[in-house]
């Protein structure tokens, strides 16, 4: 129990401690509790072991899902975990954060036929948790090759790349600008999806492969130069992520209380006491992706009274899945569609956001002229992230590092993957696949 003085729940403005420590602990508990063994057995029994299963095709990392479920069913969750981790070394985190409802579970034949897929994500978590709880790292490092690779960014792409390279016997220097590794797994995902410091535990578990040296607090452009890295190492992999936040381009954007959703989520993830985290009574989140949902739901869980997600297009265009939308709605978040921000009003600090309604005509989004105002002490911008500090000389396409094949950039000896590179959705699982595949390509290139 926290002894700190509690703020009245409906205090005006942005305030910390709206809820009791117990309430906060309950609110930020695991979104989906892990399976008990019998639950896992029953869930596994529902898998039909499809031929050339659609779920595998839908998985960006090509995990052999029917096989790992059968391994759970036959009482060997550790073998199931190895099946998963062979394809996706961050299978534990992906089990928690993958939008399975738009990937494997969406195409599960039981989803198609009866609207109730095999719960692949939860089964995957059962397998990987079992293995990790046993403290087992099922991979061993090949004998050293003498080759050195620099991996920039210790997020999902960089970690997957580093692990695969280390497994092949290369010596990996893993750099990250943040004080801790993990990237968005550590700083950018809703807390209730990664409880008990899972992101950090997973990195520690991954590092057991050996051959990876972590250098935290080293940013490209600030502490590291791409040209010297390219000279010093046999190969370079860039898994930089997207460090910038898109601007609202609305009047009053600089008012107090207008913040980046990603910073809010990062602060929340790193907070040792959630009761110290300030949140508005009236919160407006602008955007339509997972970040918007994560920020909105967590605002509500911290004790905000009214939370609205405002998105400029309609529901179908929203990049947060229907499952995520419903998750927000079930936590009491209001979702306003077809509304684009015009201005943030207030006297110094924000008090209201003014929106103009929109309509789509001939594939173009236009304002209708009609406006509405929503009370807001706190406004979160969640309208997308941008590539920041991309190294000079690399070809950029549509704001991302252009890659060909398995992450080859325009410069020989330099690969890129994850959100900073072109190709694929901006998902953890996609980043893992890209990091892994780039590592395979680097290995082939170096040993060729």
């Amino acid at each position, binding site marked *: 129990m926290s002894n700190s003085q509690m703020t009245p729940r409906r205090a005006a403005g942005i305030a910390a401690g709206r809820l009791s420590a117990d309430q906060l602990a309950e609110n930020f508990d695991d979104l989906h509790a892990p399976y008990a063994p019998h639950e896992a057995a029953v869930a596994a029994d529902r898998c*039909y072991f499809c031929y050339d299963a659609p779920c595998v095709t839908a998985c960006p990392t090509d995990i052999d899902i029917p096989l790992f479920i059968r391994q759970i069913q036959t009482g060997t969750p550790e073998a199931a975990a190895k099946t998963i981790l062979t394809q996706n070394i961050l299978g534990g985190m992906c089990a928690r954060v993958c939008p399975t409802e738009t990937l494997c579970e969406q195409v599960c034949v039981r989803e198609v036929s009866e609207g109730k897929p095999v719960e692949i994500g939860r089964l995957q978590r059962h397998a990987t948790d079992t293995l990790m709880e046993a403290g087992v790292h099922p991979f061993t490092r090949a004998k050293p090759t003498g080759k050195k690779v620099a991996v920039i960014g210790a997020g999902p792409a960089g970690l997957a790349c580093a692990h695969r390279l280390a497994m092949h016997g290369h010596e990996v220097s893993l750099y990250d600008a943040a004080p801790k590794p993990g990237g968005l797994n550590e700083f950018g995902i809703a807390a209730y999806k990664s409880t008990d410091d899972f992101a950090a535990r997973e990195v520690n578990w991954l590092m057991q492969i050996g051959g990876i040296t972590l250098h935290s607090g080293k940013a490209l452009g600030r502490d590291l130069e791409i040209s010297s890295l390219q000279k010093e190492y046999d190969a370079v992999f860039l898994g930089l992520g997207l460090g910038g936040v898109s601007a609202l381009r609305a009047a009053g954007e600089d008012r107090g209380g207008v913040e980046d959703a990603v910073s809010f989520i990062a602060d929340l993830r790193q907070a040792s006491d959630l009761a110290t985290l300030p949140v508005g009574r009236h919160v407006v989140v602008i955007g339509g992706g997972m970040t918007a949902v994560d920020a909105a739901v967590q605002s509500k869980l911290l004790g905000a009274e009214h939370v609205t997600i405002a998105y400029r297009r309609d529901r179908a265009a929203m990049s947060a899945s229907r499952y995520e939308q419903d998750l927000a709605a079930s936590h009491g978040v209001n979702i306003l569609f077809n509304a684009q921000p015009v201005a943030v009003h207030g006297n110094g600090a924000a008090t209201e956001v003014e929106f103009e309604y929109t309509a789509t005509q001939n594939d173009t989004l236009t304002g209708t002229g009609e406006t509405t105002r929503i009370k807001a002490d706190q406004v979160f911008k969640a309208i997308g992230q941008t590539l920041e500090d991309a190294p000079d000389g690399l070809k950029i396409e549509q704001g991302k590092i252009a890659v060909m094949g398995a992450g080859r950039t325009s410069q020989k000896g330099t690969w890129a993957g994850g959100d900073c590179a072109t190709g694929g959705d901006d998902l953890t699982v996609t980043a893992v696949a890209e990091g892994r595949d780039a590592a395979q390509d680097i290995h082939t290139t170096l040993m060729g």
Partner: protein
Amino acid sequence: MADLTSTFVGIKSPNPFWLASAPPTDKEYNVRRAFEAGWGGVVWKTLGSEGPPVVNVNGPRYGAIYGADRRLLGLNNIELITDRPLQQNLREIKAVKRDYPDRAMVVSLMVPCEEEAWKAILPVVEDTGADGIELNFGCPHGMSERGMGAAVGQVPEYIEMVARWCKQNTRMPVIVKLTPNITDIRKPAEAAKRGGADAVSLINTINSITSVNLDTMSPEPSIDGKGSHGGYCGPAVKPIALSMVSEIARHADTAGLPISGIGGVTTWRDAAEFMSLGCGNVQVCTAVMTYGFKIVSEMISGLSDWMDEKGHTSTADFVGQAVPNVTDWQYLNLNYVAKAKINQDSCISCGRCYAACEDTSHQAISMSPGRTFEVIDAECVACNLCVDVCPVEDCISMEQMAPGEIDPRSGKLVEKDYANWTTHPNNPGAVAAE
């Protein structure tokens, strides 16, 4: 509502659902609960001779096989006959029968293979007012090592001899319970009939080891690290029981001999199937040991509704109705040609039919882009494996080809007339067709 009352070898009961001789019928307390729940009759758990009762193991008596969600599919037991004093059992049988005169009370017996032993027990059982006796010649474990149970049931001459002793020494109808642990079930049934038995009941349990503990290397159920074979029962044994029942029902020398059907009866449908193959009633054990006595309510409503739907007013209307359709393989119509047909509207594209057919059968299912699975008639032998592995009921069906059509597999005309192996040109022993 259909009339479910049943008369089996002269024994009346309000419905054809009896509890088999087993743990659920070992005591007055249980049997009263069973009758209150609606069971038509019981076969009281097997009594032995006067004297010190048998003893049971003090560790696990049962082992199980499960399907999905721990649904119990098969049960194995190493329990012996009643381990309570004879006189206590007799007192209780009498008391229960007095209070439930409309229910069938049959008493299972197992005493040494000596006429004196049978002469001694029959009158004391008769004194209870019991309606009949069932001779336990089936119990496959423990008692068989002492020359009783299945040890008798495996020797037709002994069956005949003991059945005769019983018929000569009691007015009560005699039912002989048969063991399935033999090669030809007709032989013990014939012997029972020769000995004068009024009926047979089958099957008793099948020799079994449910599993092996891979840590201790002990068979399960394990008693201090060792296991002994037990008797297997439950839904898993039903197909074996149905086959054995049908063999007796259609065998010339035993046809018409009343049969009480036992072996995995779990639902009204199971009961109706046993009865259609010639059983006058059924006995249930594993299902009540799994779910309790209340399941009889479902059995009564289900059988009654089905009989109403079919227009049967009494159980006698359909008992044995399926027997004429059980035949030998050699008489099956080889001119009947079917092809599997996949209903694309109900297909969920799991591809199990494809994997089964492609890997293990006739490569008669094609897989197209978009996960469309279709039967290749030119390869399909109508084996039914795709139907059996399909998770969607009625998605794949077997459709008969009309006479006059060309079977694309054989290139031959589908004949309209029946023809079987006995006249087939490939049969070296074929007889000329008439």
